[in-house]
């Protein structure tokens, strides 16, 4: 063990004797050891926890929206691809005959009601069960 190590160990073990205190190295080390526990304390502002939680919530909301937009984009791309494929494979020709649907009022009313019900279930039931902080 070097002399420096020995001095440090003695101070750490509270084994310094009066006679040692004539040694400048010992005195210097004592000053160092005395100063170390007195170093500056750092703190965070008040309501720090609230700030962190708000930041976390914003981050999670951003990620959620990003996922939603990704799925929306994927859905639109899939729809367009499927539509394009169907048109080319089935030799589809545009025919405005679908406007005859207005003759089938029952089907029309059912269609509107069905889509509205799906939207309602999506907003009230499905979205509520998702863990959105």
């Amino acid at each position, binding site marked *: 063990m070097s002399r420096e190590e020995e001095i440090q160990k003695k101070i750490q073990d509270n084994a310094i004797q009066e006679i040692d205190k004539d040694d400048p190295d010992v005195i210097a080390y004592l000053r160092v050891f005395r100063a170390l526990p007195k170093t500056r304390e750092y703190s965070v502002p008040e309501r720090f926890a609230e700030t962190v939680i708000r930041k*976390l919530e914003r981050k999670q909301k951003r990620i959620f929206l990003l996922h939603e937009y990704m799925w929306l984009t994927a859905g639109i791309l899939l729809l367009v691809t499927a539509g394009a494929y169907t048109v080319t494979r089935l030799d589809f020709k545009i025919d405005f005959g679908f406007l005859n649907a207005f003759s089938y009022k029952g089907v029309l009313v059912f269609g509107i009601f069905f889509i509205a019900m799906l939207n309602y279930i999506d907003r009230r039931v499905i979205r509520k069960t998702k863990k959105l902080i």
Partner: protein
Amino acid sequence: MAGMDDRILVTRIIDGDLHAFRVLINQNEKLVAHMVGRLIKHDGEREDLCQEVFIRVYEKLSEFNFQSKLSTWIATIAYRHAINHLRKRKIVTEQIEDAVLQEKFLTEVNPEITLSENDMDEFMMLLIDALPASYKTVLLLFHKDNLRYSEIAAITGMPEGTVKNYLFRARNILKEQLLKQIGKENIR
């Protein structure tokens, strides 16, 4: 092993209990503030980093395996986050070779740390502050936070032998710099 309180707290946070997360923040904010504060000098950056540390803690909490105390794990995240921040800002933090360290601290007069001889404590604080990040961290974790060598090793990712070595060298540097600035004849 982590206490039962830590287990309950972690489980609740993973389940989405924000109140439990608030408790975790309150329990550990001082520790994180110290870990970050010792390495980051700018107040604004310090607060931002402390916030980011806790967000990271929240995101990584499911990976905590209770092999250490929760506070030790959090301190590790805080330390690494601060060190990475310093690296991005290209502020030197890495282990400095002995020869370079000796040259910088024991032969080079640093005008920033020249102070009145009367204000010894303030002078010592500046000397401590001038140490390389990893030396300062190890020194203060031991002397200020009273952590064991094994805990310091876990937080910093250094082997225990390196922790002891850094402690010895850091104290030695401070002693030598103190004697150099004050003079052996004036040290009483």
